[in-house]
């Protein structure tokens, strides 16, 4: 497919990238391209300028602090996270990244791109909401850090505004996590998914059932299904599942994820 005409820049510093994004309302960040290139083929978006983040070493890599906090650069690919010794401090992250699509997509797709595209069927928005990740957003005027609950705003919409970039994903220490999904084929697109994390009580984030991950708290796995029912989900229907079936899956998957977290 021939894309619409577009300019391309590949800055070598974060400051240059932010300047390029701020200089043009039609500028868009290009991370792994595993969503954006398809969006451009479909003409669902036609940016004037692509600002390729692949030259920014500042946005790559994973650091593990002494207290177990993980600091993940948004340009880290799924494959890099899966292979990272540091990331094993929170094993669920690698476990879930290894389930996304296929080798080729995992070799290019990035943690930051997955969160910023905020497709309701993506794997990482609910996961990051459940583990209590914090997201750092930078613009030319400085940076701010928001919790996952304030990051995901709507379908394909996040707290990252035009001219800004997600620059860091901070995941607190923890090991008692779970993730469960019903997918279209092994490692395929999620029909419904749920991530759970034990942090005092169980924090569960449900994906595919609303525009943003739905957060539910429960005291124990036995209470999870009632807690999901109390959230009064009204999921969308499509060719893969009716809304009612998705709501049912959300309950089942939330309990599975919770039981994995309690193991």
């Amino acid at each position, binding site marked *: *497919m*021939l*894309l*619409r*005409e*577009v*300019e*391309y820049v*590949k800055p070598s510093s974060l400051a240059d990238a932010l300047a390029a994004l701020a200089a043009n309302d039609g500028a868009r960040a290009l991370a792994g*391209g*595993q969503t954006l*290139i*398809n969006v451009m*083929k479909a003409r669902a978006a036609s940016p004037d300028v*692509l600002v*390729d983040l*692949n030259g920014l070493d500042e946005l790559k890599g994973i650091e593990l602090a002494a207290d177990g906090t993980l600091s993940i650069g948004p340009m880290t690919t799924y494959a890099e996270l899966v292979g990272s010794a540091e990331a094993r401090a929170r094993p669920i992250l690698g476990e879930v990244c290894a389930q996304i*699509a*296929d*080798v*080729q*997509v995992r*070799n*290019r797709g990035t943690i930051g791109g997955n969160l910023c595209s905020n497709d309701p069927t993506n794997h990482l928005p609910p996961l990051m909401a459940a583990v209590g990740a914090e997201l750092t957003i930078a613009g030319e005027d400085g940076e701010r850090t928001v919790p996952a609950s304030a990051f995901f705003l709507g379908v394909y919409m996040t707290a990252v505004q035009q001219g800004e970039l997600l620059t860091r994903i901070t995941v607190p220490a923890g090991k008692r996590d779970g993730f469960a999904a019903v997918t279209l084929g*092994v*490692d395929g697109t999620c029909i419904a998914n749920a991530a759970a994390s034990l942090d005092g009580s169980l924090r569960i984030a449900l994906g595919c059932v609303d525009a943003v991950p739905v957060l539910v708290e429960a005291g124990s796995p036995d209470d999870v299904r009632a807690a999901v029912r109390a959230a009064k989900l009204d999921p969308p229907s499509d060719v893969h599942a009716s809304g009612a079936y998705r709501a049912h899956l959300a309950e089942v998957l939330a309990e599975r994820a919770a039981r994995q977290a309690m193991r």
Partner: protein
Amino acid sequence: MEVTVTVNGTAYERDVEPRKLLIHFLRDDLDLTGSHIGCDTGNCGACSIIVDGVLVKSCMLLAVQADGSEIETVEGLADGDRLTELQQAFSDHHALQCGYCTPGMLMSATALLRANASPSDEEIKKALQGNICRCTGYWNIFEAVKSVAR
């Protein structure tokens, strides 16, 4: 924009529009038509190539993004008429019918065997997950790859 790449050991320099996908650059500008376009949505893997040692789908990258890189495509596998062990195994095991998916399958399996010379059955299947074949039912492809695993 000027793009300089090495493909299968040969250096190329071309003036490329940023909107051109890497697969079109290979096929149309460099006349390397071994890599195929099946879906153009990142789903089928027929366009799989290796860029700087990393397996990617070349319909999901811009040609300008490959500037400065070393690219390997299916044309680079055989040495003249001498097939690689993997290519010969595809032939021996009838791992292709129409052959449309084969360039991508070969690149995915090549990337696997380079990283892991003795993959398990599970690892072979997982490595080929991004490649769709509409003819063979996959079994012979799996057998071919397994036959060259150590």
